[in-house]
């Protein structure tokens, strides 16, 4: 059940006898108030974002309960009744940065609970600009994309396809697609060396890594690795390529100076290696 603070909510308060709503009320009827609500909300949001506050409360007599929130010093009206124990999600938009405190209380038809403990929500300023606006499109091959990579130098983007041998280079300075080329087999994953001079690509259902020279887009070497090579990455210094060979439960390390496998690591089934500095973590699936 969702209740929005944006819509008007008017709840007729039925006051029995002289009982006032609030903690410690001792009603003439013997009706007990709901328990203090449980409140769950995020601890950090961005200004302008809609916050979801989850509230629930048990009524001793299983009466329906309604909730009221207090945002800092501002108290809302009572929201619509719901079943005892049912969680209600109340949405609220926080526009100003800083820390906002929220608490809730519940009532049945006669009595209100105590207020819950206050929960702080830090409201951060909106984030900086980031690339989320489409400004151009370019045609690619009519095949599913298996991976793409931008050269660390920022000169080119390369796109590989799942069922096509093509690799499409895109010159990024003027957003120009250059003619696709092929070195023999559809690629799984491809990465670009730090200097932009080589592509390394694992190949579908086969057991090698293609080393492609970007200057003339030709195959420089085909490095044998285990069957089932999938993810790969280049170390920041460009000296090694780490290849996940998941069907063989190992990583293989290719030395780029002579394009040979210099190490194997593992007894696990790796998926995709990734480097940061000199330490490459690896996804495993076992």
């Amino acid at each position, binding site marked *: 059940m969702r209740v929005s603070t944006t819509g008007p909510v008017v709840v007729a308060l039925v006051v029995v006898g002289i009982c006032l709503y609030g903690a410690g009320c001792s009603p003439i009827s013997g009706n007990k108030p709901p328990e203090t609500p449980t409140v769950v909300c*995020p601890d950090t*949001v961005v200004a302008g974002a809609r916050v979801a506050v989850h509230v629930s409360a048990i009524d001793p007599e299983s009466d329906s309960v309604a909730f009221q929130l207090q945002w800092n010093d501002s108290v809302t009206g009572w929201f619509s009744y719901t079943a005892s124990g049912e969680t209600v999600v109340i949405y609220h938009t926080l526009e100003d940065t800083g820390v906002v405190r929220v608490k809730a209380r519940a009532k049945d038809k006669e009595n209100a609970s105590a207020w819950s403990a206050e929960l702080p929500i830090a409201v951060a300023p909106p*984030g900086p600009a980031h690339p*989320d606006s489409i400004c151009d499109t370019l045609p690619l091959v009519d095949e599913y*994309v298996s991976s793409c990579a931008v050269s660390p130098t920022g000169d080119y983007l390369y796109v590989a396809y799942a069922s096509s041998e093509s690799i499409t280079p895109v010159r990024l300075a003027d957003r120009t697609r250059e003619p696709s080329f092929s070195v023999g087999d559809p690629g799984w994953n491809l990465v670009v060396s730090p200097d932009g001079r080589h592509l390394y690509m694992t190949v579908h259902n086969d057991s090698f890594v293609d080393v492609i020279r970007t200057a003339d887009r030709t195959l420089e070497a085909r490095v044998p690795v285990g069957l089932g090579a999938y993810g790969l990455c280049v170390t920041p210094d460009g000296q090694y390529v780490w290849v996940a060979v998941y069907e063989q439960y190992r990583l293989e390390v290719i030395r780029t100076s002579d394009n040979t496998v210099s190490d194997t690591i593992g007894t696990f089934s790796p998926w995709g290696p990734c480097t940061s500095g000199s330490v490459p*973590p690896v996804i*495993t699936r076992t």
Partner: protein
Amino acid sequence: MTYGHAGAAIARIGTADKTIVDTVAVGVGAGTPAFSPDGQFLYTANQGDTGIRGVVEVRTSDMTLTRTADCGERYISNLAVTPNGDYVVGATNYGLVYLDARTFTPADTVLPKGSGYVALHPNGDTLYLAQRRQLYVLGPKNR
């Protein structure tokens, strides 16, 4: 491409002796990770059919799972982190999803829909989404 492997984990490997230093479980069907620019965190897309389907954050200093972001029904192909570390961007079957790194909650999903693969320009200003038949170039817009 067959995601959905049970019991996925991230293993850290020492380059000196080429051995696994430690691992952290990250749920079901984790994909290739991406690092924050300072290397303090890594992110991976969790593709499991059970539990959270979204993005997992791991602190690299002690390989501890620190946060998860539920991205609903979106199936995330791969992730990229902006060079300033402000956003984690995922290519999904529902378009792009942006995670504000401070709150780790999904922001708007940006069209176009369809499976694809995402890559960022090194300067962080331009993002490329490669899909079947089409490459989308995305530039910055103030949020």
